[in-house]
């Protein structure tokens, strides 16, 4: 009696050229998906864009000394949702005012610098939520040195909702592309299973169970899916890294290139690769089943 044949990479051993074409296509697609995934992970959808443009301004009382103001700024910077807190003294505030409204220099002549010092607080992109903004503003309002907190209370909820919708739309588009990968992959697997039907029937006639064939094809699809997704995402990440280095203005919307190497980013890529492996295996099994139902 013959020994059990190894069925690993059976499609590769039976028919290489179409598989090479499919593999190249999938790799390029994963490069695109990887680029999009990493962009979304770093940017948090629209969060980084909004966080880059949103700031809480704590206007300090006129009598607050610079040392006290800087101490307060350091304390605020220690709050979990805060990315940065910078003190601007009255002179700096006046200079900024003039840059924004040129030609209003005569205002100062009447009674000295009318501007007060303030602390500009920026929120971390991943903590830009109503609750976290409330946490920071309520902490600031309880400080006697602070005269007024400007946090855009009227329009912030609308802005955050728009940001959430934009993020959802971005992830939705990404999900649609992933679903597209699954559907196209299923069609490719079905076409390949049909093309190799004669070979599979040959093997089945010679004692190779169809289930074993389907299992090993799916397992090979999972392994290749994982490797292709990991390699494609790495290549996409490289392209994103170069883009961020070449066009620094993108950092405002996407994030710094160094974030690509954060453990959470790498963990997300590993998770994505596992998901791609599962999708590839499912596409293989469904394609196999569809091909068998056509043959029957």
């Amino acid at each position, binding site marked *: *009696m*013959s*020994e*059990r*044949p*190894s069925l690993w990479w*059976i499609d590769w*051993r*039976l028919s290489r050229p179409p598989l090479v074409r499919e593999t190249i296509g999938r790799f390029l697609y994963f490069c695109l998906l990887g680029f999009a995934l990493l962009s979304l992970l770093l940017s948090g959808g629209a969060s980084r864009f909004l966080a880059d443009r949103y700031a809480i301004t704590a206007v300090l009382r006129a009598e607050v000394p610079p040392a006290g103001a800087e101490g307060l700024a350091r304390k605020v910077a220690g709050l979990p949702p805060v990315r940065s807190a910078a003190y601007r003294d009255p002179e700096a505030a006046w200079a900024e005012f003039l840059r924004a409204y040129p030609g209003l220099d005569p205002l100062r002549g009447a009674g000295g610098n009318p501007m007060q010092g303030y602390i500009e607080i920026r929120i971390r992109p991943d903590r830009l939520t109503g609750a976290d903004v409330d946490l920071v503003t309520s902490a600031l309002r309880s400080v006697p040195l602070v005269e007024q907190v400007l946090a855009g209370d009227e329009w912030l909820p609308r802005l955050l909702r728009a940001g959430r919708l934009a993020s959802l739309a971005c992830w939705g588009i990404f999900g649609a592309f992933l679903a597209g990968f699954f559907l196209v992959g299923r069609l490719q697997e079905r076409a390949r299973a049909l093309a190799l039907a*004669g*070979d599979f029937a*040959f*093997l089945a*006639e*010679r*004692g*190779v*169970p169809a289930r074993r064939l389907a299992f090993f094809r799916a397992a090979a699809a999972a392994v290749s899916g994982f490797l292709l997704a990991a390699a494609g995402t790495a290549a996409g990440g490289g392209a994103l890294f170069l883009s961020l280095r070449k066009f620094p203005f993108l950092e405002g919307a996407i994030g710094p290139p160094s974030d690509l190497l954060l453990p959470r980013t790498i963990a997300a890529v590993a998770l994505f690769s596992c998901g791609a492996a599962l999708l590839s295996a499912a596409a293989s099994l469904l394609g196999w089943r569809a091909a068998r139902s056509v043959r029957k």
Partner: protein
Amino acid sequence: MIEGFRLGVFSRGATLWDGLDIAFGDAAAWFVAGPPSSGKTLLLSILRGERRPDAGDVVVSGESLYRGSAAHARAWRASCGHVPEQTIADARLTVGDLFRRSALAGGGVRESERKDRADRLLEMVGLPGSLEWRIAELSISERVRACLAAELLRGPKVLFCDGVVAGAGIPSREMLWGLFRALAREGNTVVLAERTIPERWALAAGDAEPVGPFRVYRLPLPGAKGDPG
């Protein structure tokens, strides 16, 4: 030993045969002759474990193929070689693909070894240097011989050939006569299904045993009594 007990087949709305008792001993070459549409191909597929008979059972090495364990049936099929009546199903393949596929079914053979053995087998069946040839471009005789050579690559313990002698043509008969008997002498079992037995083979085999619509001959082994050489 392959034994069919009380085999019956219902096909195309009629009973093709029923109550068929047939046995093929090990290490022998058997020739089953039967008229067209008598169910020769069906008989081979039943004996190979591919198609459950509508009545009766097939016993191989003392265990039923259809009522025994699935592992036994799989192992049996893995030990079998089968050269079918020629179809156009494999037309897209090359002769080399047939060998690659056969090697895969046999548990994998190293590529260099496969090529070496394929070259020798193809030379033996009169198709030297044909590894790159496309099946679609081969004649019926060449296809039969290429398929036979590819099956022999795995060294099957039992070889079922359906219409191979007729398909290969008269010029290949001597080669096949020698090949099948040599396989039997080496301990393999060969079962051939054909419409008619070549006259010289029938003379050498002696009296046939009538089994249902078939006549079953046992070909003499080389050097045995009655062997014409």
